[in-house]
């Protein structure tokens, strides 16, 4: 256990689902017991099914590592964290964590609306494991970070929800354990606060602390984690370099991320759309692109015969469905006759790096000719993500270009 901060071996957690509702009355429980002889053994077993929320999960985390735990909803991420936090016990397996370990599964646990901000800081801090001396020492810092100095002695119920979140996070941000287990707590507050929280998380992560970070926010994972673990249906299906793990996670999403195969023909069978995909700087097909890198969107299609004036165009939409840009092969006069020639073709367009704001984008694809109109028009043909690594972004901008600034 020399430099290992967390060791997990064959951890498993089984839950009973079905009739076993989360609370029963004594009457219901008695009724089940009384009627069970009549229902027979078989029916009693099938009444409640068992599922393994986690199975055979094993990994090690070295001291100072920041590891991201990702996966779809229901993959077992939160269950894993709950077991490591000791909120629930495993059904099988073993885990070891060096002390002190603190967890952040929620911000503001223990907050009571009738108590003042000051009182809630002490209460929440104590609930999270801080000693009174520690809270005394950090009190001013916590209040400063939260930005609610003026209201620190008013009851919490007078605070706006944003203020409450800021106060809660301020307390949480001042935990100083050797190991920190964090679950999705960055998904609270407005974009500006989320950004500040991310910054603080970066400080915490950089301070030699070991962090296990569960999140759906791929930008955060890519920014903070040196390593990632991918869970699916309770099992580890990927481990290692963050970019690779994130990439394989995004590829498996139901939305066509990175690549989509179509193989569809238009009505006249003149143009067949084969596939569309995004490639990074090195021409590898992947759905996640770093902010500063230029990247490519490629479309493969084939024509049965020459189509005059054929053009391939695409529009990018961001997650708010705002159309960000429009580009087409017709922008390049040298391609005009070549695009509609008979045969199989691949067109690709290079989008400059340091331009698009981090986030997810959807490609609207169109293949058009003056004679026919749209041979193909697909609104969400393929999607990709710009990862906000090394860029300061609030997350709701349309563009985030890196421009020249002058100091005069």
């Amino acid at each position, binding site marked *: 256990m020399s430099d290992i901060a967390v060791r997990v071996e064959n951890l498993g957690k089984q839950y009973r689902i079905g009739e076993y509702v989360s609370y*029963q009355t004594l009457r219901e429980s008695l009724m089940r017991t009384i009627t069970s002889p009549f229902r027979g053994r078989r029916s009693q077993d099938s009444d409640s099914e068992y599922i393994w929320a986690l199975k055979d999960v094993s990994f090690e985390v070295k001291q100072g590592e920041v590891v991201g735990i990702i996966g779809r909803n229901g993959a077992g991420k939160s269950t894993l964290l709950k077991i490591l936090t000791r909120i629930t016990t495993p059904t*099988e*397996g*073993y885990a070891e964590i060096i002390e002190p370990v603190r967890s952040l599964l929620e911000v503001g646990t223990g907050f009571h609306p009738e108590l003042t901000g000051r009182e809630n800081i002490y209460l929440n801090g104590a609930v999270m494991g801080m000693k009174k001396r520690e809270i005394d020492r950090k009190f001013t810092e916590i209040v400063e970070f939260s930005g609610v100095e003026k209201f620190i002695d008013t009851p919490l119920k007078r605070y706006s929800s944003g203020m409450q979140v800021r106060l809660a996070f301020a307390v949480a941000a001042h935990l100083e354990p050797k190991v920190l287990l964090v679950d999705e707590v960055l998904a609270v507050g407005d974009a500006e606060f989320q950004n500040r929280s991310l910054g603080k998380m970066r400080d915490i992560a950089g301070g030699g602390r070991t962090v296990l970070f569960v999140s759906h926010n791929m930008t955060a994972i890519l920014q903070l984690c040196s390593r990632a673990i991918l869970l699916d249906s309770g099992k580890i299906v990927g481990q290692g370099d963050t970019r690779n793990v994130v990439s394989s996670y995004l590829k498996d999403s139901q939305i066509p991320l990175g690549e989509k195969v179509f193989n569809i023909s238009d009505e006249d069978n003149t143009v067949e759309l084969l596939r569309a995909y995004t490639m990074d700087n090195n021409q590898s097909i992947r759905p996640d692109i770093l902010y500063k890198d230029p990247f490519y969107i490629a479309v493969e299609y084939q024509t049965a015969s020459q189509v005059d004036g054929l053009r391939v165009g695409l529009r990018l939409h961001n997650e708010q469905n705002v159309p960000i840009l429009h580009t087409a092969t017709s922008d390049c006069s040298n391609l005009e006759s070549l695009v509609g020639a008979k045969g199989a073709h691949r067109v690709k367009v290079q989008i400059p790096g340091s331009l698009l704001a981090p986030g997810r984008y959807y490609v609207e694809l169109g293949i058009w000719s003056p004679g026919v109109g749209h041979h193909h028009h697909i609104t969400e043909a393929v999607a990709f993500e710009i990862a906000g690594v090394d860029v300061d972004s609030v997350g709701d901008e349309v563009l985030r270009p890196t421009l020249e600034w002058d100091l005069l």
Partner: protein
Amino acid sequence: MSRQGHNRENNDTSSPITVIRPLKGWALLNLREIWSYRELLYFLTWRDVKIRYKQTVLGFAWAILQPFLMMVVFTLFFGNLLNVPSQDIPYPLFSYTALLPWTLFSQGITRSSVSLVGNISMVQKVYFPRLILPLSGILAPVIDFAIAFVILVGMMFFYGYAPTVRILMVIPLTLLVFLIASGVGLWLSAINVRYRDVQHAIPFLMQVWLFASPVVYSSSLVPQKYQAIYGLNPMAGVIEGFRWALLGTEPPSSLILISCIVVIVIFITGAYYFRNSEKTFADWV
């Protein structure tokens, strides 16, 4: 028997390790762990005390009013109307002396039995020994008790029952009340997580228990042959003990003895039941 979450010293590094493994069998009562979380116990109790009378005009006066008004009602109906014998002690003093430990007990039970369910988010999101929650429920009413006790001493002087050195016996008796309330509270709070009927049954349970205890009457009214069974109610011995310590009635020797045994049994079984079902609290709540 494996223990969840125990710390042991590590050979290589200086920091202790938390070990996590499936809990099988009966969990030991981890008093050391509870001691290390004593600050949290303090804060949770402090919170309960602070919010109890927030936004009320009367504030802490309620702590005095409740047993006082009960005493008035009891005096009118049991003392005067029904003429319940009160061992030559003025009825108001007779019943008020009993109401103090009684209120501490019933408040403690009422609060601790819903302590787990009422703090769902904490149970689901943070680790701490769950025992702390019912314990804070039992400790919170002690402030009310202290305030009402001052009134009691005032009443004692008023009726000419000056306190003697026996008043010191109130301390061990109060601790006994804590023990009883804790034992019952542990059982009820743990069962309530799974079967919510419990929290609905509490008011009724307390009503019945009130009349099964010598609050409005003296235990000497109970026929000799039933005294032993009567003593199984741990509050019987305690209340008579309070009257003896403050007002100089008969010492409740045999009653107290049976009470103590019952209390210890309830407490130990309650603590073990609680610790055993603790591992699935987060799943049930």
